[in-house]
């Protein structure tokens, strides 16, 4: 009869370990071995440089549309760095850095962005789903995969990435709900980069945080400083523990910022100010992490400089390899590959039709 407040099992924490100035909350600092810290740094740095390289290639017309990751390196690496090879990575379309960590090659990424579907080929043994463009739709795939893990009694987990915009999509809610109902080992990593193309985060939801969406589905949610690799890592480790011990999913909201364009076809000046970007630049995840590593005496400016050289050379190698590959690929007939296990007769006929047309076109070009 009386009106009482309902006590919910969860509340929303905000986690920050390393502040903008590189100051550390010692009590929260995760225990990460030095070589792993350096590996995370290497990928952060590689991601940053690779991003710039792709942007440059795109501007030269050498590859097509690309969604840069600049500014979101910590969100991605802080989370994927807890994954095992047997875990499954379910990306959206802005996870190039996480992809590299998970074993994807720069060459493949370049090929894909250059319009060659072969670049999307996921090698056997890598449990990564391909890029998913329809916003939020991939969250459900992680749920299905996690169901398989639970059904097969594995202690693996699925980690799915998506942005703030995706939290408005129905699939996101269905995924959280399903994962909650079936108590599945999924880690939902929301990279709240504040912009869904031109629409700011505040226009996506009236809710104070995105993490609190978890509460509606009876699962834990946490908000972290997404530009703080250590904070992301802490949240991911907690989620991992839950997932592997059968305690179900977790939603992690990484508060970060899309430092660059939505895609190479986008002009952010139409909807946001340079000041805002400047404000976020101060919280650059890479610089912060470098500061931390320097404090830990794992890194020096000199080392950073030489690493930069090394990574750039690596990138150049990849670009060269990719461009070489591009020349080899591109037979239009390949579009008929991977439609179905068997090519039905009518499709076979269409394939022959294309082959004929290609020949005819070539002949006409010769004559013409």
């Amino acid at each position, binding site marked *: 009869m009386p009106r009482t407040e309902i006590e919910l099992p969860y509340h929303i924490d905000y986690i920050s370990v390393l502040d903008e100035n590189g100051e550390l909350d010692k009590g929260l600092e995760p225990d990460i071995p030095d070589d792993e810290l350096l590996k995370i740094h290497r990928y952060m740095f590689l991601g940053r440089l690779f991003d710039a390289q792709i942007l440059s290639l795109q501007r030269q017309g050498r590859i097509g549309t690309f969604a840069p990751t600049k500014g979101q390196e910590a969100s991605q690496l802080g989370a994927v760095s807890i994954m095992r090879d047997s875990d499954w990575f379910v990306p959206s379309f802005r996870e190039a850095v996480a992809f590299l960590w998970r074993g994807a090659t720069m060459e493949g990424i370049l090929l894909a962005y250059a319009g060659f579907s072969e670049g999307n080929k996921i090698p056997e043994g890598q449990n990564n789903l391909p890029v998913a463009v329809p916003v939020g739709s991939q969250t459900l795939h992680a749920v*299905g995969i996690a169901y398989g893990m639970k059904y097969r009694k594995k202690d693996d987990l699925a980690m799915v990435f998506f942005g703030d915009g995706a939290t408005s999509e129905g699939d996101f809610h*269905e995924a959280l709900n399903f994962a909650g109902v079936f108590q599945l080992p999924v880690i939902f990593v929301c990279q709240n980069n504040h912009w869904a193309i031109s629409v700011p985060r505040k226009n996506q939801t009236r809710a104070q945080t995105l993490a609190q969406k978890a509460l509606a589905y009876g699962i834990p949610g946490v908000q972290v400083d997404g530009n703080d690799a250590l904070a992301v890592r802490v949240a991911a480790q907690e989620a991992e523990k839950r997932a592997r011990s059968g305690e179900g999913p977790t939603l992690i909201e990484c508060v970060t910022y899309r430092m660059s364009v939505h895609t190479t076809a986008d002009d952010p000046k139409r909807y946001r100010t340079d000041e805002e970007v400047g404000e976020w630049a101060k919280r650059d995840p890479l610089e912060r992490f470098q500061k931390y590593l320097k404090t830990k005496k794992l890194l020096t400016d000199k080392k950073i400089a030489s690493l930069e050289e090394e990574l750039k050379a690596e990138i150049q190698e990849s670009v060269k390899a990719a461009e070489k590959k591009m020349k080899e690929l591109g037979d239009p007939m390949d579009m008929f590959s991977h439609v179905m296990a068997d090519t039905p007769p009518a499709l076979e006929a269409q394939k022959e039709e294309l082959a004929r047309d290609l020949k005819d076109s070539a002949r006409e070009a010769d004559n013409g």
Partner: protein
Amino acid sequence: MAKMTMVQALNLALRQQMEKDDSVVILGEDVGRDGGVFRVTDELLDKFGPERVIDTPLAESGIAGMSIGMAVYGLKPVCEIQFSGFSYFSFHQIESHASRMRWRSQGRFTVPMVLRCPYGGGVRALEHHSESREAFYAHIPGLKMVIPSGPRNARALLASAIQDPDPVIFFEGKALYRAFREEVPEEEETLPLGKSHLAREGKDLTMISYGAMMRPTMEAAEILKEKDGVEAEVIDLMTISPLDDELFTKSVKKTGRAVIVHEAPRSFGAGAEIISRIMEKSFFYLEAPIARVTGYDVVIPLFARENAYLPDAQRITRAARRILSS
């Protein structure tokens, strides 16, 4: 051999495939405790447990999307969308992911899932419960679209669909669910997907149909024989996509005349594609324009007017007579 309704035959297919392969799981709304609102999954929960017969929350996209993830992981989900009229919630999962995961991952991942849904009219249902929208799915490359016409082929086709390495949309005619019983052997039977079936031999006319419309079509063929002495050949497509055009184009070469029957609206329906194939392959054999007996391009009426909308043997017979006399 036991006699079964289509519901029982589908249940048998599911049970046997689940017994054979522990990667086969069932999910959907009310498929577990309730055994499905049409009882297709009756008693499977008791037999296989809640881990394999999953009552999901009420969210079609969730059901389809989760199935895709399961399939990618190596399971063989058979998901049920309670009515095809609600499958549009899950449409984007099917179109954007299920149909193209193989291509997108360049062959690394396949989606061996089956999406079952009841379709079609004739059971005096509410709005959104009677549509026949197979063309939506047939239009998507990478998907198979299968519609059985009776208990025995339903069982065999569902078994094949479950074993198929690609996603299959499996439409079950509600009007057929309990319409009649057929002998269905206990031993596993399969039918190849993408192959049509010669349901009746004839020489004067080719009738092409599928699913629940096979009944009035066969009835019309019988009327034509009895009243007109016309031997109609009837072809049951069974798979809408990929469309097997070999049998019906060959048949039209023999008969020179064709009637196509479906309950879906006429424009851009399966009939349009069938006619195109006939034009491409059998044009010079045609002796009359091809007739389509279909639903009209309207919202399928509520059941008070439904009978006038759905093709029946009389309409089909009349159409056949028209083209026979031209």
